[in-house]
């Protein structure tokens, strides 16, 4: 009898939504502890300056103030963050949680004021006087590379924090043989994740047990615990980290931040709970930025459209510090590992420099590095297609890695576990009515309407395991996850996992997975996340790994407990275990489904001395399993954007948006679709709106949501989603991750659609965001050139 799939694959309503909708969520700011005081950080208005003197005498006299701390005082008690990458191209540097001697970006924390409430702390901070000696700011990569006597970190011999080179195949030879060579420079702006809930941290010290408890809006509680212990010199077994409800992480909250260390330290020093909640201005200028690449790319192809080689030189502006734990190496390495995307490109060269500047540090943000791949490669595919006069869909078909070649080792060194790329393209074309759009496009141009269609085929390596991180040299990321389950005497079960939820419905998905694997009812399952005291060790929630990594651990541990339950039932029912089935909380012989035991009865037996089980069945029904993929489960898909460009206003209107995705086994389709829609929304931001702008003095000009433009509900298209399920051989149930595909694929789909719409003008963009201003400028430039040509012609 095949196992009934009652839970996996079903669009079950999210269990956590009840509490969110009723306003009962418990976020950091909802925490109220007796005697709790508030911290406020004083931040540098200078991009690059020496700190000459800090005078806090006035502030200390202000009402309600408990103290003011600067880098001088804290420095001897809290060690700096010093993330490490095992690579000779990496230059490690210290990030002092409060600036010591020098500030390196606008917004860097210089002092912290603690008062009985936030208002008093902020008011008192106004009277702290800091005397700076401004240094010449290093506002961009070019200045930084040429700044011989203007080091951002004096102890380093260069402002290049990370450099590396990768060569696969023979790129030069391939370029020699090529019929077509195209090169372009691409620029992806600096942007950020912009979670609805800003960062926040509360810390409390229990002097009787010497336990420091840190509540933080974090994606990685274990990493935070380890770092708090190390930097504060506090024994790790006496540090507890709790991530309660978190209102969005998007990679930004996977880092360990200076504020988390300072607040933890102050709670221990003051013996009073201390709270800090980030405001939106701090969030925009001093949490974590992302991307900021300039990539010079060259592609070589034959006349039949076969791509022979890809060569990329990348400059990433990583800001003032290497973020912990990912470092300045994260963007370049992620980018390099996926640049060829779903295509079989035998010859590949990638060189990258991550360069320090006087800006906010760059770290992880959904689609880190990966999002650059379609933006560059898919634009180049379209350019090659045009050059060799092959349809853009056809050139993709001709270059996809064929399904029979998986597992596939790419020239990038990345191993693709499984995939089947053509079906997603075909389905996307059909759904988008590719031929129909092509024919109506001509007609519309006659009416002065410019409609374009853009394709974006992509890959998304998910749930990367230890081997992948080791290869990258990112030795501070644990790269495994764990699950514990505990069946109690009433036959209900508690599950604990190492990946805390950021709002993506993990309590539901994990419960579904467990119900399916154990054969229990969902209402008998409770999922607990985000507490290092109760949850087993692991990586945390990032790089699309919760289902792939922690979910796999959960499947394995469920199967272990299921075996034990079956063995016990076999003993009690006197039926061989192989003939038994567990469904809906009942265990029974497959031949006699009406007889048998409830899980409750069975669990009771396990917790009672009355019954004697065979010796091989130990008492208790609890177990833990950890899991690390042997590589990465590579998801894939094709997105299609159909846009209309208004050439009078430069406004881009997304008419339709199609996403065909393949993330292996789907647990909850509604939640998966939510991930895709959310990712597309953020990708629309990258493509059309979002850019963190600094001036030439290193001053951030987009420090409010008036200036940092993000798409609202009216700008985000309705996404038509279809799924394929190519199972991963690396996970026990074939699942792959899906957290980032939306933002990886969509900027390229939209950008290519804009280029397609503007084909009559020969305009395409290699710099995001494609703002109305950029479109109008390009059209104006184009009409000038045309006017010039016409004039020449007349002469």
């Amino acid at each position, binding site marked *: 009898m095949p196992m009934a799939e009652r839970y996996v694959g079903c669009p079950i309503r999210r269990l956590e939504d009840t509490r969110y909708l009723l306003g009962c969520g418990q976020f950091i700011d909802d925490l109220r502890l007796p005697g709790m005081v508030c911290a406020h950080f004083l931040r540098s*208005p200078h*991009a690059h300056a020496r700190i000459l003197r800090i005078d806090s005498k006035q502030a200390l006299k202000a009402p309600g103030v408990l103290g003011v701390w600067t880098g001088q005082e804290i420095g001897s008690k809290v060690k700096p963050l010093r993330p490490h990458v095992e690579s000779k191209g990496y230059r490690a540097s210290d990030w002092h949680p409060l600036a010591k001697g020098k500030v390196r970006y*606008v917004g860097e924390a210089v002092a912290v004021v603690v008062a009985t409430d936030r208002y008093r702390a902020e008011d008192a901070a*106004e009277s702290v*006087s800091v005397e700076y000696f401004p240094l010449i700011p290093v506002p961009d990569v070019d200045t930084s590379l040429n700044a011989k006597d203007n080091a951002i970190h004096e102890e380093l011999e260069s402002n290049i924090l990370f450099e590396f080179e990768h060569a696969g195949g023979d790129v030069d030879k391939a370029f020699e043989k090529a019929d077509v060579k195209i090169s372009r420079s691409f620029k992806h702006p600096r942007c950020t994740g912009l979670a609805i809930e800003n960062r926040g941290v509360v810390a409390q010290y229990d002097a009787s047990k010497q336990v420091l408890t840190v509540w933080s809006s974090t994606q990685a509680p274990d990493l935070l615990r380890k770092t708090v212990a190390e930097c504060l010199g506090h024994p790790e077994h006496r540090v507890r980290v709790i991530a309660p409800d978190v209102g969005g992480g998007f990679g930004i909250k996977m880092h360990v931040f200076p504020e988390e260390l300072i607040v933890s330290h102050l709670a221990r020093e003051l013996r009073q709970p201390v709270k800090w909640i980030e405001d939106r*201005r701090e969030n925009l200028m001093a949490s974590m930025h992302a991307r900021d690449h300039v990539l010079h790319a060259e592609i070589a192809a034959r006349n039949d459209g076969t791509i022979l080689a890809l060569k990329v030189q990348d400059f990433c502006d990583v800001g003032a510090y290497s973020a912990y734990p990912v470092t300045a190496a994260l963007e370049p390495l992620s980018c390099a590992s996926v640049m060829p995307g779903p295509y079989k490109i035998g010859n590949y060269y990638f060189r990258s420099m991550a360069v320090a500047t006087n800006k906010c540090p760059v770290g992880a943000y959904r689609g880190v590095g990966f999002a650059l791949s379609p933006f560059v490669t898919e634009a180049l595919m379209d350019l090659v297609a045009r050059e060799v006069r092959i349809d853009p869909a056809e050139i993709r078909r001709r270059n996809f890695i064929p399904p029979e070649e998986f597992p596939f080792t790419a020239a990038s060194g990345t191993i693709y576990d499984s995939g089947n790329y053509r079906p997603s393209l075909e389905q996307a074309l059909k759904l988008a009515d590719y031929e129909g759009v092509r024919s109506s496009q001509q007609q519309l141009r006659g009416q002065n309407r410019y409609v374009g269609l853009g394709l974006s085929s992509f890959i998304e390596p998910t749930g990367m395991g230890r081997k992948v991180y080791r290869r990258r040299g990112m030795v501070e990321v644990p790269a495994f996850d764990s699950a514990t389950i505990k069946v109690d005497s009433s036959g209900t079960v508690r599950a604990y996992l190492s990946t805390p939820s950021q709002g993506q419905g993990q309590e539901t998905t994990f419960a579904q997975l467990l119900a399916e694997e154990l054969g229990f009812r969902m209402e008998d399952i409770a999922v607990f996340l985000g507490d290092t005291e109760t949850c087993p060790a692991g990586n945390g929630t990032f790089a699309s790994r919760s289902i792939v990594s922690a979910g796999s651990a959960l499947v394995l541990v469920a199967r272990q407990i299921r075996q034990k339950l079956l063995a016990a039932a076999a003993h009690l029912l006197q039926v061989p275990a192989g003939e038994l089935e567990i469904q809906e909380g009942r265990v029974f012989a497959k031949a006699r489904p009406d007889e048998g035991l409830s899980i409750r009865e069975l669990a009771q037996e396990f917790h009672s001395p009355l019954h004697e089980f065979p010796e091989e069945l130990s008492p208790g029904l609890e177990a833990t399993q950890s899991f690390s993929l042997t590589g990465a489960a590579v998801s894939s898909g094709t997105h299609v954007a159909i846009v209309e460009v208004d050439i009078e206003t430069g406004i881009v209107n997304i008419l339709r948006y199609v996403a065909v995705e393949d993330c292996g086994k789907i647990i909850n389709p509604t939640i998966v679709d939510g991930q895709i829609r959310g990712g597309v929304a953020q990708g629309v931001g990258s493509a059309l709106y979002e850019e963190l702008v600094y001036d030439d*003095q290193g*001053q951030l000009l987009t*420090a*409010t949501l008036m200036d940092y433009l993000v798409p609202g509900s009216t700008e985000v298209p309705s996404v038509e989603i279809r799924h394929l399920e190519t199972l991963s051989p690396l996970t026990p149930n074939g699942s792959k991750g899906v957290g980032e595909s939306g933002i990886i694929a969509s900027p390229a789909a939209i950008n290519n659609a804009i280029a397609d719409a503007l084909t009559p003008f020969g305009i395409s963009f290699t710099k995001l965001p494609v703002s109305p201003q950029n479109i109008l400028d390009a059209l104006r430039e184009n009409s000038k050139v045309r006017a010039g040509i016409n004039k020449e012609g007349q002469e």
Partner: protein
Amino acid sequence: MNLKGTHRMKAKRERVWVFLNDPEVLRQCSPGCQQMTPAADGSNDSYDVLMEVGIGAVKGRYTGKIQITDRIPGTQYKLAVTGNGSAGFLSAEGVIRLEEVGEETLIEYSGQAQVGGLIAGVGQRIMAGVAKQMVGQFFQCLEKAVLKPQ
């Protein structure tokens, strides 16, 4: 950000010069200036100031210095203003030059201003307008003082 402009006054150059060098006039006419006292470090032509300036939505208090240097009597001087406060910092430096045009005086000014921190992040976009307005207010106030019958 560059600041540059002219202002014409119906007064003799010598008289304008006197007023431009009167600390009390400078105090009264610098927009937002709350206090201006001779510098605590005792340096000449240097004043400690307390300013309250609003740039768009960002109203801030700044403590800083006003310093006059490179003086060519009756003709020109260099004026430097710096301020630090909770909303960031501002600094400006420029040359003010007087030219006699018949019975009138043409004041030419040119210099640069810079802001940092919150005022840059929130107010940069409207900075040029605000600076122009403040310079305008300064010269109008100065003109009023100059033209006031003794």
